[in-house]
Structure formats: C-alpha cells, structure tokens
C-alpha cells in the first residue's frame, strides 16, 4: 500500500466531487418532476395516458444505463439531421447528455416508487374522507400525499444512493468526475487498489450523508405533522 500516494490522490480526486454532486442534484430534481408526471399518467384509467408511461418505464428499466448513455451521446450524434438541428446545441454537450440520461433513468424508477406509494392508499381512507365532505384537493393533500410519501420514502432514498453511484458512468463521455479522475491517476501511477479505495471512500461518505438525511426525513414524516 502506498499511503502517501493515497493521501496525494485524495486531493486530486476530491476535485471531481462538485461535478458529481451537480449531476446528481440536477438529474434528481428534473427526474423527480418527470417521475410525478409519469406516475400520475401510469395510474390513469385512460389508456391514452397510461400506455406511454408504461412503455417509457418498461424501456428505461429494461435496458442498461451504460447503453442508454452511449445511445444518447454517441448514437444520436451519428445522424446528420440531428447534428444540423437545434437539438445539437444541447446534445453536443457531454454534461447535458449525462444529465439527460440520468434524469430519464431516475424518472422511470422513481415513477414506479411513487405509483407503489399511491396505490398503497387504501380506498377506504379516501371514501372516509369524501363521506366527511372533504374536497378532492383536500383529500389529496391530507390523505393521499402523506401516505404516499411515507410509503415511498425508504425506496426513494435507495434510488438516490443508486443515482450517486450511477454518475460514475459519465466519465466515459469525457466528464472528469470522481471515477474519471481516479482512472486518470491510475493510468499514470499504475496503483488501482490505492486509488479505487480513495475514490470508493468518497462515494461512501457522500452516500452516508444521504442516508442520514433520508433517515431524518423518514422520522419527520412518521412522527411529524406533514
């Protein structure tokens, strides 16, 4: 073990943390907004809404993330009409392609988590609410949402952790985040064990913070007044 190398490389690899966090943050936010929409479409009784949502989730969950990233980044760039269209302004950017891929991925998984949460609301509760004269919005706010969040939160926390780890893939499209920097250092020092331990520890720390945060949120919704 070359401990001095581990110490030095830590300060190099840590420079990739802002990019990793930026990608996680943006794709989680966009992904969550998209996921709520997809989940609402998915539970709709109208096939016009539920079918597209079903196939979106089916496609994204059924194909590897790496392949999706290759498809969006290298695949779409093969078509001249895409390179000449306005889409190229954003698709040219590796950062945009990385965030887009992760957004679509987390949207599909989160939509299923949210749908599961919504369907765990017993019809009896909703009937009870309406028999007491609660309006549709009030029932959504006071009954459906709190139960959905309570049910979905543990699984969603898991999804957040998976997102942090998934960002390691974007180094293949020239984005130098934690894993990308680690690989660059390895290719110069030929010390994969040391460098990967350092990079792994950084991921571990980020995910530790996220786990704590989710625990805190779970405690809040179970004992608080949401």
């Amino acid at each position: 073990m070359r401990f001095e190398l581990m110490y030095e490389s830590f300060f190099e690899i840590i420079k990739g943390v802002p990019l990793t966090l930026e990608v996680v943050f943006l794709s989680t936010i966009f992904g969550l907004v998209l996921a709520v929409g997809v989940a609402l479409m998915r539970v709709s009784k109208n096939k016009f809404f539920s079918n597209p949502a079903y196939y979106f989730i089916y496609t994204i969950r059924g194909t590897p993330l790496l392949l999706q990233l290759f498809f969006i980044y290298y695949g779409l760039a093969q078509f001249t009409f895409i390179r000449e269209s306005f889409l190229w302004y954003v698709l040219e950017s590796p950062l945009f392609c990385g965030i887009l891929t992760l957004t679509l991925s987390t949207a599909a998984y989160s939509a299923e988590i949210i749908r599961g949460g919504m369907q765990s609301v017993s019809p009896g509760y909703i009937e009870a609410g309406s028999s007491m004269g609660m309006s549709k919005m009030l029932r959504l706010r006071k009954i459906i949402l709190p139960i959905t969040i309570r049910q979905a939160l543990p699984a969603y926390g898991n999804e957040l952790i998976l997102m942090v780890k998934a960002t390691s893939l974007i180094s293949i499209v020239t984005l130098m985040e934690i894993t990308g920097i680690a690989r660059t250092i390895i290719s110069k020092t030929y010390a994969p064990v040391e460098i990967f331990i350092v990079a792994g520890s950084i991921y571990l720390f980020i995910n530790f913070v996220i786990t704590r945060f989710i625990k805190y949120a779970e405690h809040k919704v179970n004992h608080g007044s949401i």
Partner: protein
Amino acid sequence: MRIIKVFTTLLITLSLSSFALAGDWSKIRVGTEGAYEPWNYTNAAGELVGAELDLARDLCARMGADCEFVQQDWDGIIPALVQGKYDVIMAGMSITEERMKTISFSSAYMTEPAKMSTIKGSPLTTLSTAKNLNLDDDSAATKGTIGTLNAALKGLRLGVTAATIHEDFANTYLDVDLKIYPTQDEMNLDLSAGRIDAALSDSGTIEAYMGTPSGANVTFFGPNIFGGLLGEGVGAGIRQGDSDLKAMFDKAIAEAAADGTISRISMQYFGKDLAP
C-alpha cells in the same frame, strides 16, 4: 472480524498472483487492447485481429512458444501486466521513460509519428507548419513549430486517448481544452460529430478510420510529431523481472526485422513500412 480475514486473504492472493508464473515460456500470454485499428482491433466476428496479432504469432513461432491473446482495456493494460494476467503487452504501446519506471520493453518493432487530425473544412486544415516536429531536437525551429501549433489550437477542444503519450504531449506542450477518451474508437466518433475540434493520435490508426464511411470527413493537419516524450517507437511491454523473456523478444524481433516479416505485415495493415 471474519470480513477482515476474507479481505486480507484476498489481498494476499492478489499480491502473490504476480509471482505465480515465471520461467517456463512454452506458452506466452499476450495482452492487447483490441480497439486500435490497424494495430490491434476486433473484427465483425468478434475476433482479435491486426498487425500486432500477426506479428505476435510470428514472434511466438520463432521463440517456439504458443501464443494466447488476452483482451484488456487500455487504461488498465500496464497494471494487468504487472499483476500477471498476461506476460507481454503488444498494443501499439510506445516505449517511453515514464513507462520504463514500471515495466521494461523489448526493442521497438515498429515506429510511427503522432499526428493531429480534424474534420474537412475546419480552419485548422489551412495551418502551415514544418513537416516534422522532432521533440529530441531542442532547436529554435522546434520551439517555433510548437508555438505555431499551440497558437492555432489555443482554447480549442483537443481529443486524446487516456494514458497515452499523446495525452502527455498535450499536457506538456499545449494550452487546449483537453477531452480524454477511454478508447480511440470513441474519440473518432466525437471527432466526426464535431464535439472536438481536433484529435491527436498515431497516424496509422486515424488513417484506418478515414477509410471507413463515418471517418470520411476526417483529415490530417500539422507536422509529424516524434521523439522526446513520445518515445522511441512501439515495443512489447514486459515485466521488469522477466529479463529472459525480454531477451527472447529482442532476438525474435531482430530476426523478423531482418528477414522482412515486419515490413510485410506493416505494408499489409498500414500501407507503408513502419519497420524499425
């Protein structure tokens, strides 16, 4: 406690594996990348082919050994040699002082300059420089050529493959927005797509790409670059302890160069003679 024990055992096994095989060279395992046409690449049937595969078979026959090929990603190709996953690297790898700190090399079996490429119609194609840039030559002319190149590329996006002499060259001499790719293939795609303004690599591998439909819009510019940190040609990477294997390769390469085998393979794959 049990986890620590398992982990320790794993580490010990990993470190011992490097020493497990030595001495008997009736079978030689050759590590290559398989993504660096025409040096070594993977054909449509998924088989490893290329100039180095043919050369390796020829050298192994001269050494009276069986060759077995192992495919390994470029950025891990030296660690895997050191760990004993194969015995020799033949992957278009230039002999450099930097790499000699970790492994040793046979004598060079081919030499080829590095070259910049861009897409047709790019302003870079009109750049005029000296024909050759020899980094061993420390003259004002050399500095002038580097200066011209640097001025033309300033702030532009230049693609290189990770952990190559080309990445070192860019880091040392150029002031560019460097984009680092895992393999040459991915860099080629982004060059054609216009995501990078220029690429730096061995000239032969870009020539191979120019011959494909998607690479038809790619063209060379700037000087032939060689010498200095770009190394002394392409050689076979060998573990530092295996000096007997290095001696066998040196002898076989000298024979293959003398009887024209290297020139023949080179003409077949590169269309020019890269024999040392």
